[in-house]
């Protein structure tokens, strides 16, 4: 006798809320409850696994009363006997099955839990493992689960039998494989199916890359000893004859001339057939097609093998497909950097033919900005001949920030603020600001650079600087400088990778020799007076093809720059020239070799023959020659010259060789690098005295880390070649100095 449900009430629930139950109920208030619906409701509620017993009643005025007996909930899970797999890994597996504290206990699922836990062990090679679960009742309708595990011995590989390898010995082939018979540590002797598949693939490409074009693995077997603790792997193969290449022909699209195709293929008749070299050749051709807009071109090698002469002729069928166009370029992940700051680096435009070369150039330009820890341009196909480019970036800290209030007996309370931000508020502009003031020293240096002053990348950078030292407060230093000036410079891109820049710099330098007997200082003041204003021209040329700003693994950066005072505008006329060259190359996935050399020299002209003593070059410390005290190379003034400060020189030569690798043992080492370095260099009186045999050399371990506060670097070093009197320093560190 059906009836219209006026209301739904639930009796007997302790832990299950009405809404939870209501979700599974196939009936609603207001519907008529038929016999069919009643059965279906009971079945639906049983399927939830929450209840031991369910009964439906009809209330006095047609309410639907649901009476249930809840199953106990799990109060505690105790796991014993597990050594190999940690308890919380097992608990995670149990959570995956819905077996956690607080959840409803369903005895039917215990069988599945035992199977799954045992499978956790089987995957690790513990084939003989056993799992038992005992359930213990607790008050208030709760239960405790006791899971005890007997792990048994792990199955290790007893023998790998290779059948049919006539040309290469067992040891040679087994050397290539991940799975090993005897192993000192690690788990290479534990069988795993993926590792075996990988090994079979390794054997296949080992043979296919050495001329065995018809090599085939007939079958492979994995067997267990009866007590399930020893694994026997056998691989049965047929080598087939060893082939050499015969003629190579092309058919299909004629868009690329054959000579160029052969050069891209980089294969000649007579060399051994090698699958990987053929694939490399095909990719080179495909990339060439992508460069001219055919992004989905296909190159299909038709190989036919002449068995008796053991020669392989290949006909490459070129199917260029249709021109491919870029419909839209989107940017993801730029939570701080503005859209146009990325888009202006792109060499690929929307509604234009797709060019792989342009996309590659854009990716390395974005990497060179230094704003992102990772840049990935995802090419998504939206039609046969259209793609969307999605630039996926991960932003990283792009500046350093130091602020502080200090006190020292020397110059009383001091306050300093330092900001260096390469991507100010995501605008792509660069700001450098440092202000500090104390009783003795007040200085400020503000610089602003806009890399895209014009839309084609002409950059403009300006800056003012001021520093005033009132010498009476600082009685110990031998001389102090007061500086006031401004600089402006414009940068031109002269090609995809090279830039030219020119600028002006006006500066007034006040020299005050505090102690009476600092000879160089007094001579300078006698000749040129205390303060001199200098107007000088700055200029330079730079080539930069690095594939990333902070830790490049490929590329080359060379620069020539000079600064020369304009004659006639001041007595203190001198020039300085800087030559820098750095080169990175990838040795393997982790290791990168960096070689760099720099030469700086200068000279006075007109009345001045040597650089003013305060403009000389110094070397030593992080950023030049690690392992020696900062600025200590090139000797010191003697006491009778009235100072003990480093002397400096008019020429500086530095070279570095560095092996850079990511920090081991941590997964995300994207902004941390270790390096083993050999630094060498020295300071010379002038350019002609530069002679590398007088280099000071040190080697050691460097560490660099891009932190939110700024780039942090420190190094432990040991001098190799030093002279008497050099001041070495094994531990050095710097914060905020871009490396």
């Amino acid at each position, binding site marked *: 006798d059906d009836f219209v449900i006026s209301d739904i009430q639930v009796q007997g629930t302790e832990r299950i809320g009405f809404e939870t139950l209501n979700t599974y109920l196939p009936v609603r208030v207001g519907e008529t409850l038929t016999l069919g619906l009643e059965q279906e409701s009971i079945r639906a509620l049983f399927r939830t696994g929450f209840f031991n017993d369910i009964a439906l009643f009809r209330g006095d005025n047609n309410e639907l009363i649901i009476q249930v007996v809840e199953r106990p909930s799990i109060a505690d899970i105790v796991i014993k006997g597990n050594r190999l797999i940690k308890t919380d890994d097992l608990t995670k597996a149990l959570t995956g099955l819905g077996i956690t504290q607080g959840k409803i206990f369903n005895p039917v699922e215990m069988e599945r839990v035992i199977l799954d836990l045992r499978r956790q062990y089987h995957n690790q090679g513990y084939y003989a493992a056993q799992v038992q679960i005992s359930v213990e009742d607790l008050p208030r309708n709760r239960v405790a689960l006791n899971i005890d595990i007997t792990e048994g011995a792990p199955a290790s590989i007893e023998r790998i039998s290779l059948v049919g390898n006539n040309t290469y010995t067992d040891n040679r082939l087994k050397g290539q494989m991940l799975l090993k018979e005897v192993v000192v540590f690690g788990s290479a002797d534990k069988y795993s199916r993926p590792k075996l598949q990988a090994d079979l693939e390794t054997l296949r490409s080992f043979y296919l890359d050495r001329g065995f074009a018809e090599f085939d693995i007939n079958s492979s077997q994995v067997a267990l000893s009866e007590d399930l603790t020893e694994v026997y792997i056998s691989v049965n193969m047929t080598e087939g004859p060893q082939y050499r290449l015969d003629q190579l022909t092309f058919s299909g699209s004629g868009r690329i001339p054959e000579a160029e195709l052969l050069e891209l293929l980089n294969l000649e008749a007579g060399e051994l057939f090698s699958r990987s070299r053929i694939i490399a050749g095909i990719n080179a051709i495909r990339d060439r097609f992508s460069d001219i807009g055919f992004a989905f071109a296909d190159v299909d090698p038709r190989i036919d093998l002449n068995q008796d002469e053991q020669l392989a002729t290949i006909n490459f069928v070129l199917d260029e497909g249709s021109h491919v166009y870029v419909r839209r370029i989107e940017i993801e992940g730029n939570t701080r950097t503005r859209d146009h700051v990325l888009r202006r680096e792109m060499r690929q435009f929307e*509604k*234009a033919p797709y060019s792989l070369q342009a996309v590659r150039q854009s990716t390395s330009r974005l990497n060179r900005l230094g704003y992102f820890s990772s840049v990935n341009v995802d090419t998504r196909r939206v039609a046969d001949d259209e793609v969307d480019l999605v630039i996926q970036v991960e932003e990283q800290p792009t500046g350093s920030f130091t602020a502080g209030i200090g006190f020292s007996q020397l110059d009383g309370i001091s306050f300093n603020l330092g900001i260096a931000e390469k991507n100010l508020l995501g605008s792509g502009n660069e700001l450098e600001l440092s202000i500090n003031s104390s009783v003795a020293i007040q200085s400020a240096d503000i610089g602003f650079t806009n890399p895209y002053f014009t839309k084609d990348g002409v950059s403009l950078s300006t800056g003012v600087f001021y520093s005033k030292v009132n010498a009476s407060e600082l009685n110990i230093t031998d001389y102090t400088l007061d500086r006031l000036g401004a600089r402006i410079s414009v940068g031109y891109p002269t090609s995809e990778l*090279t830039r030219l820049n020119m600028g002006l710099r006006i500066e007034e330098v006040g020299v005050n020799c505090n102690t009476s007997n600092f000879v160089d200082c007094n001579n300078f003041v006698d000749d040129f007076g205390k303060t001199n204003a200098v107007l000088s021209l700055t200029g330079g040329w730079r080539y930069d093809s690095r594939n990333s700003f902070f830790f490049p693994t490929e590329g080359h950066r060379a620069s020539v720059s000079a600064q020369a005072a304009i004659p006639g505008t001041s007595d203190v006329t001198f020039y300085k020239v800087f030559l820098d060259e750095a080169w990175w190359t990838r040795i393997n996935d982790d290791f990168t070799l960096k070689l760099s050399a720099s030469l700086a020299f200068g000279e006075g002209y007109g009345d001045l023959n040597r650089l003013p003593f305060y403009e000389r070059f110094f070397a030593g410390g992080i950023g030049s020659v690690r392992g020696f005290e900062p600025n200590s190379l090139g000797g010191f003034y003697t006491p009778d010259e009235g100072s003990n400060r480093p002397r400096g020189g008019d020429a500086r030569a530095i070279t570095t060789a560095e092996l850079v690798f990511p920090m081991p043992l941590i997964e995300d080492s994207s902004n941390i690098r270790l390096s083993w370095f050999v630094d060498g260099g020295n300071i010379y009186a002038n350019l002609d005295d530069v002679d590398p045999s007088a280099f000071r050399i040190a080697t050691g371990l460097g560490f660099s880390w891009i932190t939110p506060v700024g780039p942090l670097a420190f190094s432990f070093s040991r001098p190799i070649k030093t002279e008497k009197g050099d001041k070495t320093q094994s531990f050095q560190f710097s914060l905020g100095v871009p490396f």
Partner: protein
Amino acid sequence: CGGIKPFKAPIAQGVVIEQAMLEELQVGLSQQQVRSLLGPNYGQHPFRPNVWDYTYSNSNRNLHPDAAGRLQLIFDDQGFLESWQVIETESRKIKL
């Protein structure tokens, strides 16, 4: 300061229409057939969907030198090609 012209990145815009494609173009083709023959119709008139203008211009002359500058196609109301003409044979040069 200094009259050197700065380097400007090459730019290209539009769809490359080659002579081979024009040979296969004939009145009566459906919009879909024209689309797969010539390429995406980026130059479709914003308010008159049956007027398509294929244009191509670039700053680097040796890339696709034989691409047509402008091709206009008119479709009838049922969407079949009524008439077409190459308005500019030479692709337009973008002066950077």
